[in-house]
């Protein structure tokens, strides 16, 4: 019963908001077209970018480009961050040696790497991937490390008692046991990757969703800004949902609770 009620209220609110949107923009003009687009403005911008294209390409091309960068950056960050976290969690010496360097780098906000990346690698894809890597790397390491450190001692003792050799220990005991927290880290990494990419594309790019936002802002084209923003939101949601699906599959044994 409550499920229906919630959906009902959700839809009603949505309808109300759209109505309000129309009312405030197109019908009454309280919000001028130069500040926020009306639904019709939004629609024509949406149609434009999908047919004639905008800022050098159609929406699909921009979106694809951004998604590819996010996925690549995320993949690099995760494939370096998780193993490092595992190593630091397992080896006290590695933790002691790496921690100071980590503490130095960690407080630097991901977006603060953008000017340096542009300086080093220009405005192309390489710079974007570098910034995404820095941004997405840290949450993966920290959460993986925490995950390993919070494994209950008896589990580790049991694995040792069974004579488990090193690599099997990491692959079949450490990693699965830490998996719930690792996935939390992955979710944070994905979030960081998107934020950083959009920012990086806003600062300097030649293609991509952030680039659309940039050009639309300079053209003073609010409707297109909105198209860009919603595209970012939709793709962010889609990638997050995909990660969630992978997580549910991998953690099917985890009844103790998967956090949102």
């Amino acid at each position, binding site marked *: 019963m409550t499920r229906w009620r919630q959906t009902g209220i959700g839809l009603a609110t949505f309808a109300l908001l759209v109505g309000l949107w129309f009312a405030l923009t197109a019908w009454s003009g309280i919000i001028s077209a130069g500040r926020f687009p009306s639904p019709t403005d939004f629609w024509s911008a949406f149609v434009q970018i999908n047919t004639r294209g905008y800022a050098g390409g159609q929406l699909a091309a921009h979106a694809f480009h951004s998604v590819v960068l996010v996925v690549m950056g995320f993949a690099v960050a995760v494939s370096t961050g998780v193993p490092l976290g595992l190593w630091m969690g397992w080896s006290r010496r590695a933790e002691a040696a790496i921690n100071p360097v980590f503490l130095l780098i960690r407080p630097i906000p991901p977006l603060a790497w953008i000017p340096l990346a542009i300086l080093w690698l220009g405005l192309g894809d390489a710079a974007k991937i570098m910034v995404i890597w820095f941004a997405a790397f840290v949450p993966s390491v920290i959460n993986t490390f925490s995950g390993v450190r919070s494994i*209950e001692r*008896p*589990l580790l*003792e*049991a*694995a*040792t*008692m*069974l*004579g*488990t*050799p090193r690599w*099997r220990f990491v692959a*079949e*005991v450490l990693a*699965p*046991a830490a*998996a719930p927290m690792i996935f939390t880290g992955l979710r944070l990494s994905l979030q960081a990757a998107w934020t950083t990419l959009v920012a990086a594309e806003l600062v300097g790019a030649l293609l991509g969703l952030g680039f659309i936002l940039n050009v639309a802002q300079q053209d003073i084209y609010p409707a297109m800004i909105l198209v860009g923003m919603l595209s970012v939101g939709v793709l962010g949601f889609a990638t997050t949902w995909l990660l969630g699906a992978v997580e549910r599959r991998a953690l099917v*044994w*985890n*009844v*103790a609770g998967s956090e949102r």
Partner: protein
Amino acid sequence: MGSILFDNVSKVFGRNSAGIKALDNINLEIAEKEFVAIVGPSGCGKTTCLRIVAGFEQPTSGTVSVSGKVVTEPGPERAVVFQHFALFPWKTVRQNLDLGLRNKKLAKPQRDDLIAGALRLMNLESHADAFPHQLSGGMQQRVAIARAYVLDPEVLLMDEPFGALDAQTRVAMQEELVRLTRVNPRTVLFITHSVEEAVYLADRVVIMTRRPGRIKEVLDIKSKRNVENWNRFQKIEDVMDQESFIHLRTHVWRSLREEKPDTTT
């Protein structure tokens, strides 16, 4: 194969002056296939004894040997059954049993055989592909015991294995363990708080003093058990009804009570 020898074992935790002396000169010989239970007040070091045999702790002085070899690190020949099961939640029952066998580098057909045998032994055949969280506490502990048994260990180390189970399951598991050790005997070192459990299960009961732990007394159960032939009973309550059992149990209780500082005056 499977004898345990404690030779002048002492254990201190922490730095020398501020250290806690958990064990003080433990000397104990456990023969092959003997079932020995250790009881004692909380903090007396009985779990420490087991952990030293398991290889999770090192003695501060003295040595522990199993089958004549000094113990330095954990291994499958000294299989451990933990109080809270320590099953790997991401592995099915079958996979939990398989890990130790794969570590021994056995071939698949052989592993499958051994696993099937262990499952049959512990009545787990219908749950072979379940995850631990889908099983009750009693079943999980049976998996833990199966995981230990499948390794054909020289020594079975059980650290308050039934402590986390409810009273009825606990009794069922005690009966099960007796059945198991009759069908498939081996050396067992069993730590428990429960006096009844110790007297019911063991060949000998070791009573420890409070910290620093020393061996206060070693009680021979087996001879009484054989004389009175407890084995003729299937049910635990029938055994516990025997005068010989009650007598032994009371003896252990009295001995333990001396270890408790008297707070009633």
